[in-house]
């Protein structure tokens, strides 16, 4: 189906074992992830400025000082810390991991050569090489992620039923590159400024646009929201800030690329995107980390605010290091992502492709506050090896005539556990709320689990909710049919799986769509054979 050339970017290749009997039984097709093949598991050797381990007031003051923050920001952090000390780690998710020692983590790590964002010329060449190796050229003339060039044909071209998502394809992507605790470069800043779009590291925005940050930070995910969000509020180090002014259609895709590099270091980024009235922005997020034996913590918060008639499209391809075949190492990913459709007719859409992380705990949600607002959640979650995923969404209908749509596709292989957890609720005043949920799971092999836990809550008689969930496997009949037409088994599986996830892939901006399809195929490589 596709060429198997090594694709730079966001992939988890897994090896092929050769000693398996060529038996068709699904169980024999299950093979282990061999993470030696995780292409992004390398480590950048660079002198780092690392704060001592532990989470306490001193560390928070240190972070705040390193970032040259105003007093109000420090106060905000300390308030969050006070709150966090009274909270307990949530245990309701279907995840099994040993207790995390929050005092055994570095909360700040930055390359010595730079203490904050710099212009491209000032970036340490070693870091530039790192991003090059990851397929993220930090040069303004190239597009993101080493995917095809703008004029390169792809299989999507002969496929008229998969048009690129509307308005998503500009061919150019502005990148904010976050390396451990700091943003090392942000491209296309000047060009974006011309359109009035603010796109910069949040640490910079706190200094340069305090009025916007103060107004919106914590307005969607309050300081006290949940254990991990509260911790993030206390110790967040960097992340992206986006403001799209009234009536502006952001002229290019914006993206942030997160890289955890330093050992024993957590990454706690904070992203805040505000789409003012009538504006539009599409934002992409990618992530990788080196391969290490110990687990590393990633606890991010993303807040989206869509004012009247505004639209935000947020896409993620999550490819954190998943750990080895025995479940050793890998990223613990505890993320709070929430969008607030604050104005009438606003729209927020989350699309995620999850292939990495040892643990994923993540529920990108929409608060449908404005009348006629719309929330969407499209998700593909692939688990293999010993990965555990508990992910889904919340659609909270508050306004009148609000609508939401959830398409979730879970694929479990190996010894993994893959749970969809989603809440749809209609407030008493949410007349004519509409939700459609389709939640499908595919199992590959007998050692994995697929679970579906929806919470459907209606308090309004005119609200209409429809929820459907199915669990199935790749049918032997479909596989045989494809193979009879000459398609080798592993490609046949990838083809069928890509058909299974197509509804979601279609929602991704073109650059990511091609990438995501390859990524899914490669993530499952070795799970069949």
């Amino acid at each position, binding site marked *: 189906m596709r060429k198997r050339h090594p694709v730079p970017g966001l992939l988890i290749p897994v090896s092929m074992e050769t000693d398996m009997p060529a038996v068709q039984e*699904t169980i024999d097709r299950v093979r282990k992830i061999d993470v030696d093949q995780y292409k992004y598991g390398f480590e950048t050797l660079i002198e780092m400025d690392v704060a001592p381990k532990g989470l306490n007031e001193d560390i928070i003051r240190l972070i705040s000082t390193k970032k040259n923050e105003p007093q109000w920001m420090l106060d905000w952090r300390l308030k969050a810390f006070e709150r966090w000390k009274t909270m*307990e*780690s949530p245990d*309701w998710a279907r995840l099994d991991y040993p*207790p995390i020692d*929050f005092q055994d983590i570095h909360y700040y790590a930055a390359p010595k050569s730079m203490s904050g964002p710099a212009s491209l010329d000032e970036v340490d060449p070693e870091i530039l090489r790192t991003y090059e190796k990851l397929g993220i050229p930090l040069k303004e003339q190239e597009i993101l992620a080493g995917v095809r060039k703008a004029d390169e044909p792809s299989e999507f071209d002969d496929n008229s039923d998969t048009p690129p998502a509307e308005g998503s394809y500009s061919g150019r992507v502005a990148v904010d590159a976050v390396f451990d605790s700091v943003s090392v470069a942000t491209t296309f800043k000047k060009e974006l400024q011309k359109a009035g779009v603010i796109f910069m590291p949040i640490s910079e925005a706190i200094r340069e646009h305090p009025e916007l940050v103060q107004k919106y930070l914590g307005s969607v995910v309050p300081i006290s929201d949940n254990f991990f969000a509260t911790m993030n509020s206390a110790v967040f180090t960097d992340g992206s800030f986006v403001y799209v002014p009234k009536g502006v259609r952001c002229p290019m895709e914006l993206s942030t690329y997160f890289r955890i590099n330093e050992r024993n270091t957590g990454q706690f980024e904070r992203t805040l995107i505000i789409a003012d009235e009538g504006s539009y922005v599409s934002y992409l997020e990618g992530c990788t980390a080196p391969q290490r034996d110990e687990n590393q913590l990633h606890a991010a918060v993303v807040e989206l605010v869509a004012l009247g008639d505004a639209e935000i499209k947020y896409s993620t391809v999550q490819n954190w290091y998943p750990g080895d075949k025995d479940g050793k190492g890998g990223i613990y990913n505890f993320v709070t992502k929430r969008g607030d459709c604050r104005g009438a007719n606003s729209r927020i859409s989350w699309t995620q492709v999850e292939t990495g992380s040892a643990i994923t705990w993540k529920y990108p949600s929409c608060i449908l506050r404005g009348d006629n607002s719309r929330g969407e959640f499209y998700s593909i979650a692939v688990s293999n090896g010993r990965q555990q995923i508990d992910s889904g969404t919340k659609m909270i209908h508050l306004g009148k005539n609000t609508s939401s749509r959830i398409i979730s596709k879970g694929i479990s292989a190996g010894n993994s556990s893959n749970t969809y957890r989603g809440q749809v609720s209609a407030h*008493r005043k949410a007349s004519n709320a509409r939700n459609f949920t389709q939640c499908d*799971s595919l*199992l*590959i*092999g*007998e*050692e*994995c*689990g*697929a*679970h*579906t*836990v*929806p*919470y*459907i*809550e*209606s*308090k*309004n*008689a*005119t*609200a*209409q*909710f*429809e*929820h*459907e*969930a*199915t*669990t*199935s*496997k790749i049918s032997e009949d479909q596989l045989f049919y494809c193979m009879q037409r000459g398609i080798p088994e592993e490609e046949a599986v990838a083809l069928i799986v890509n058909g299974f996830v197509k509804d979601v892939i279609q929602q991704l901006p073109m650059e990511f769509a091609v990438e995501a399809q390859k990524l899914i195929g490669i993530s499952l490589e070795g799970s069949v054979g």
Partner: protein
Amino acid sequence: MSVVTELKTRTPAETQLLQLAEARGENENARRPAIEALRRDGLPTRKVEAWHYTDLRALVGRRIKDDAAVASLKAGDDAILEPLLANSVVICLDDPVSAHLPDGVMATSSSSVADWQASPNHLDRSIDTIRALSAAFGASSAKIAVSSKTSVDTPIELRPAAGSDSHFYAQVSVGEGASATFVERLEGDGSPAPSTGVSTLTIADRANVLWIVDQEKGAEASHLGQLNVTIGADAVFRLFVLNAGGGLVRYEVHAETVGEGADVQIRGANLLKDGQHVDVTTTLNHRVPNTTATETFRNVVTGGHGVFQGMIKVAKGAQKTDAKMACNSLLLSDEGDFSAKPELEIFADDVQCGHGATAGEIDADHLFYLMSRGIPEATARALLVKAFLGEVVEELEDEAIVEALEARIDTWLDTHA
């Protein structure tokens, strides 16, 4: 971060329930451990996932506010009832031996209490709340057995003890190749302190059982019920749950297939009005290959809080399981709400499992169609609501049973909808 487990402060209602249990006197030894477990753990809150939508601690607390509420426990006033199905034989669960039973059916009284420490249902705590309450109160205990290869044509109606502080524990077994129909009749004014009813039903290979739950308790009554079923090879278990009464009601069904070819068919109707909290929680546990299950609940809500939690579990190795679940709710007023949590927990890859849930009002197109044929709106609405419920009742096929249940439903609709 170290987690400090704090001792919960007991609510006044919890204290009173414990006092009530202490005051029961008889069968002390069997009850003691359950009382202590309750003293330790209290009633579950919504933080316990299995009680996510039914915060028992708060709900019971709200109902037992003072001693007066507990005092009213003694004031039972159960009228003499006609059985739900004509020609039924009635077994009073506190006096099972006195019933005149058909051939092949045995009923005895027993001193055992519900097995509250054995396999708590999904996501509940280390103890099973309803079974623990039943054990703590020392339910009147009965054993009913249907001999193998016996086809019992007479429906058997099971009735809790007269008096509203009733707690029963029924152990029912249906032998190989036998068939029987049971009606669990939950009636009476009841009291704010919850009554409990726990049944175990063991269905042997190739047996066929229809179990009907008819819950029409008074508006003040709190009731916690549980039916635990194991289904043998090629056996059929059919269940119909009708909830058309009660103030605070939770009915749990935990069905487990233990033999290949077992078939489970669960249907139910929950009718809710203002002031009620009605929760139906089911788990379908597929433990062996080649079993099938279908489950459909229809809910009509004119007020109050309705809850459906349904779990389909497929154990590792239980290949070729085919299980479908649906929960459809009609909300007739903004005064009521309905929450559904249909879950799948799948550990085998060659299965067909699915669930669907819908919530909404009466279909406007259907209503328009009927009205365009000259049917007045109120009549048309009533017709559509009846049809919505009728669909699940009629699947029982037996004409007399369908009629009996539809009569109960119609009575409710005529009064409340």
